[in-house]
């Protein structure tokens, strides 16, 4: 029974992992990756690592939620309304994948693993706790410091507000025309406003919202040349739904 469950979860994990690269929608890709992780978590439970398995479900879920947000924030076509190919250098990638999988398989089959089965009734969570507070105490505390460093760095790198002024300071691309404003015309960030003052005296640029100009939204060939983002090769696109 457990063997059957193992096969089902493994196949599901691999299949959803494959799906990540086959779908057009970033959201579907993100959550297919989550589905893959959920199946791995189930496999861990089957291996009697109950706490690790369930905690993996939990951790991976919140992490994939955050990843999904960032995927959409960075991608121009997040829902894949126009199909795109998510695979770069497919031949090389496939070869590398096969070799890596073969390597892991060889290790799995031929390595001499320690044979210390865990009984179904053993209190693994409790032992984990004892280890954490005893032998691995230093590791545990230094993880705290690492996480603190992570938090501070992510704040420094990502926050647009702060006590020390505008986050854009010194981090902007040069202006498009000489002497021009180096900030995008529609960027609303105003240090005064962020400090809790009123939003007076803001210049919203000349964005004429009154007319919803369709011709602006019809994208000609020029756009396509300009938008060769991230090395995405348009010639390679194939429809895969």
């Amino acid at each position, binding site marked *: *029974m457990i063997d059957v469950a193992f096969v089902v979860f493994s196949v599901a994990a691999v299949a959803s992992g494959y799906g990540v690269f086959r779908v057009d929608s970033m959201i579907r890709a993100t959550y297919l990756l989550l589905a893959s992780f959920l199946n791995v978590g189930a496999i861990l439970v089957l291996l009697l690592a109950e706490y690790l398995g369930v905690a993996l479900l939990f951790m991976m879920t919140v*992490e994939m939620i955050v990843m999904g947000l960032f995927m959409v*924030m960075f991608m121009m076509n997040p829902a894949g309304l126009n199909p795109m190919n998510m695979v770069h250098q497919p031949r090389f990638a496939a070869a590398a994948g096969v070799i890596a999988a073969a390597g892991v398989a060889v290790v799995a089959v031929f390595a001499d693993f320690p044979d210390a089965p865990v009984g179904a009734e053993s209190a693994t969570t409790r032992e984990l706790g004892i280890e954490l507070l005893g032998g691995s105490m230093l590791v545990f505390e230094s993880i705290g410091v690492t996480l603190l460093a*992570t938090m501070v760095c*992510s704040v420094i790198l990502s926050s*647009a507000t702060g006590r020390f002024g505008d986050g854009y300071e010194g981090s902007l691309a040069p202006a498009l025309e000489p002497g021009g404003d180096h900030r995008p015309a529609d960027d609303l*960030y105003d240090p005064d406003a962020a400090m809790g003052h009123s939003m007076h005296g803001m210049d919203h640029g000349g964005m004429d919202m009154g007319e919803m100009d369709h011709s602006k939204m019809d994208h000609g060939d020029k756009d396509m040349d300009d938008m060769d983002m991230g090395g995405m090769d348009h010639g390679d696109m194939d429809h895969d739904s």
Partner: protein
Amino acid sequence: MMSAFAAVLAVIAVALTVQVTALARSEWADPFVSAAPQRVPVLGGHEPATHAWSRFHVRYYPMTLVFVAFEMEMMFMYPWAVVFVEEGAKALVEMGMFLTILGVGIVYAYKERVFSWQ
């Protein structure tokens, strides 16, 4: 243990099946067809010029990064809670230290107004 997880999976499967069946049935067996003007997203009368799906500017993105880092600590807290009574003051001190370190990060982020919309 396995039978417990089997029960959880069975319950999820049944709930999913019930909802999916009901929704799929309404999709296929609906006597009403959604006409083209009916399918237009609700904006109060006007048609949207574009699809809604766009590169969404998530205003709270630094918070999510702090969250991901902070949330790692939960992994250690569950086993810690189980052995807390056994280990007593030692557990309290060690976790107190750990949380204080992370708390510094939260305070720093709060001071930098990371939890406001950017």
